[in-house]
């Protein structure tokens, strides 16, 4: 069930009514039932996958938790001396680590097999020059949201191992954490210690929260239906035909693709978080005005934040402080490469994280290269940091707003440019970039190719209005919640603002007959 369908709206409406009608202690059970229904809508068989993940993770986490408490009892009662205690603790930790590893292997294994078998087979086919027709492919259907709930549950397992959160005893409660329907399909990736309070406490109807939730949903619909889906066909045409759309169109495609990606995904998040807010459950934010960032790594701290946070916490820090990295670093130190010794662990971990980020986004070389390119760009900018600092010391006035704007534009262009790896074949990325720089002229916009994109004058007006609106909202957000500001205005102002937005979605949204019912881009990960 797509989040932008009549069915979903009806589903949500019924769920919301029931949620505030049932006795409060049953609210979470209702959410669980509704989540199951939601998921089963795509085929009940697929419920099996999240169930395997939920049950296995719940069980292993509980086991790890029991070992912890047994260890505590042992130390309390037996009062071992320091050496004994250390040895005992090491033994327990090793056991716990085994359990955690088993859980991680099982669940990431399922994800890997389902998601990457075809990719692997495809590469083998190429490697061994299999004839066409003899190509091996399995074409397994990915269960909805598998990349999201797998990451979320594995984060939980690691947190329990680290002692950061206590294991959940009630399997049903844990299942709600895994399958909570607003977030299951496209995230955000929540942490158990943050979400559990929200999920299981009793929620009374709060008119303000509910209204805010609805406003947020409307804003998400606006981004998704009015902007993302409107530009999607044109963007697809440009990015799929680099031989026709060259020159300035490389830039148009780049920016269009970025805009589409952002409005599609962040719009989806607005709907998800808004729906959840209507239930009184706060989900973590996934975007924080990413295009206000002044450099690429800052942008990535504001874009798909729960995923990058996951990678930072569970891959980047552990890998960079791992024994392997330490050894490499020492080795470099011995060779007299002191600077490299300091940076090597960071850079190794960085490349691993970005490789995984790439492959998480899609089982294809384009995504992997895109990930690695981001990683490399960040390392280059890290290397240049000293230069920047020297530059700023030399020209202290360069911190002004003009330079800030320049930084933002530069960062946005870099981010968009790197996305070329996602849609152009690898060997053409640099050629297209060169083509843009060498032959790109603004006049090409009027050479007739633009007209073939299928965008009418009305579309451009809508897109322009949409962009201005997003910009205004973005600026307003810098000084606090836009919805709170709106709520403080008189009724007539509030009504007019929300009503106009509603009418724009209603009239200018790309939905229904004549528009292809389009999925969210981030659904299939």
């Amino acid at each position, binding site marked *: 069930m797509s989040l932008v369908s009549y069915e979903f709206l009806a589903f949500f409406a019924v769920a919301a009514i029931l949620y505030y009608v049932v006795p409060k202690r049953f609210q979470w059970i209702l959410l669980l039932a509704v989540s199951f229904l939601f998921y089963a809508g795509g085929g009940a068989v697929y419920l099996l996958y999240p169930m395997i993940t939920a049950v296995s993770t719940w069980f292993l986490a509980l086991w790890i938790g029991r070992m912890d408490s047994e260890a505590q009892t042992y130390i309390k009662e037996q009062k071992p001396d320091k050496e004994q205690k250390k040895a005992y603790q090491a033994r327990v930790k090793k056991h716990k680590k085994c359990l955690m590893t088993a859980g991680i292997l099982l669940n990431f294994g399922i994800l890997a097999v389902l998601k990457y078998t075809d990719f692997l087979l495809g590469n083998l086919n190429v490697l061994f020059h299999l004839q066409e027709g003899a190509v091996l492919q399995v074409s397994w259907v990915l269960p909805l949201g598998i990349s999201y709930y797998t990451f979320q549950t594995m984060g939980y397992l690691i947190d329990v191992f680290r002692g*950061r959160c206590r294991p959940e005893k009630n399997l049903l409660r844990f299942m709600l954490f895994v399958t909570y329907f607003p977030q299951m399909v496209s995230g955000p990736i929540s942490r158990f210690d943050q979400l559990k309070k929200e999920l299981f406490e009793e929620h009374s109807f709060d008119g303000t929260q509910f209204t805010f939730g609805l406003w947020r949903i409307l804003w998400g619909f606006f981004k998704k239906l009015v902007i993302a889906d409107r530009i999607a066909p044109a963007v697809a045409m440009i990015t799929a035909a680099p031989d026709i759309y060259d020159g300035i169109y490389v830039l148009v495609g780049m920016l269009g693709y970025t805009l589409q990606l952002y409005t599609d995904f962040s719009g989806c998040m607005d709907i998800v978080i808004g729906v959840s807010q209507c239930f009184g459950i706060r989900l973590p934010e996934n975007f924080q005005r990413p295009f206000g960032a002044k450099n690429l790594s800052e942008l990535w701290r504001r874009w798909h934040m729960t995923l990058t946070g996951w990678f930072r916490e569970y891959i*980047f820090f552990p890998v960079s*402080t791992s024994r392997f990295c330490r050894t490499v670093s020492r080795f470099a130190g011995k060779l007299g490469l002191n600077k490299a010794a300091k940076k090597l662990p960071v850079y190794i971990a960085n490349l691993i994280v970005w490789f995984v980020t790439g492959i998480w986004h899609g089982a294809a070389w384009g995504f992997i290269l895109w990930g690695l390119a981001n990683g490399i760009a960040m390392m280059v900018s890290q290397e240049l940091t000293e230069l920047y600092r020297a530059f700023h010391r030399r020209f202290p006035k360069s911190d002004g707003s003009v330079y800030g704007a320049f930084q933002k534009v530069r960062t946005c262009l870099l981010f968009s440019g790197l996305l070329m790896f996602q849609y152009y074949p690898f060997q053409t990325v640099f050629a297209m970039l060169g083509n843009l720089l060498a032959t790109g002229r603004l006049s090409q916009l009027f050479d007739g190719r633009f007209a073939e994109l299928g965008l009418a004058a009305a579309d451009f007006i809508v897109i322009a209005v949409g962009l201005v609106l997003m910009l205004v909202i973005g600026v307003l957000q810098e000084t606090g919640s836009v919805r709170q500001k709106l709520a403080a205005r008189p009724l007539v102002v509030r009504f007019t603002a929300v009503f106009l937005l509603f009418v724009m979605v209603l009239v200018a949204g790309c939905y229904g007959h004549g528009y292809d019912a389009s999925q969210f881009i981030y659904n299939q990960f």
Partner: protein
Amino acid sequence: MDELLEILNDINPDADYETNDHLVDDEILTSFELVMLVTQIRDVFDVSIPSEAIIPENFNSVEAMMRLIGRLKEDE
């Protein structure tokens, strides 16, 4: 304490470490810098900071870092 300040100034000289207690939240120390910091603390103070301890609360201020180092030393 001075050793720590030296490491910090080496990593990013553009901050006032003695007064600022939002170093991570203000993104003065980003993940790159945190890892370099952890590596050098290990070399200089001879304590290894486990990756799960790399959380903002432990690195937002110089005092917090000193507390962390002290705690870890005690555990060893």
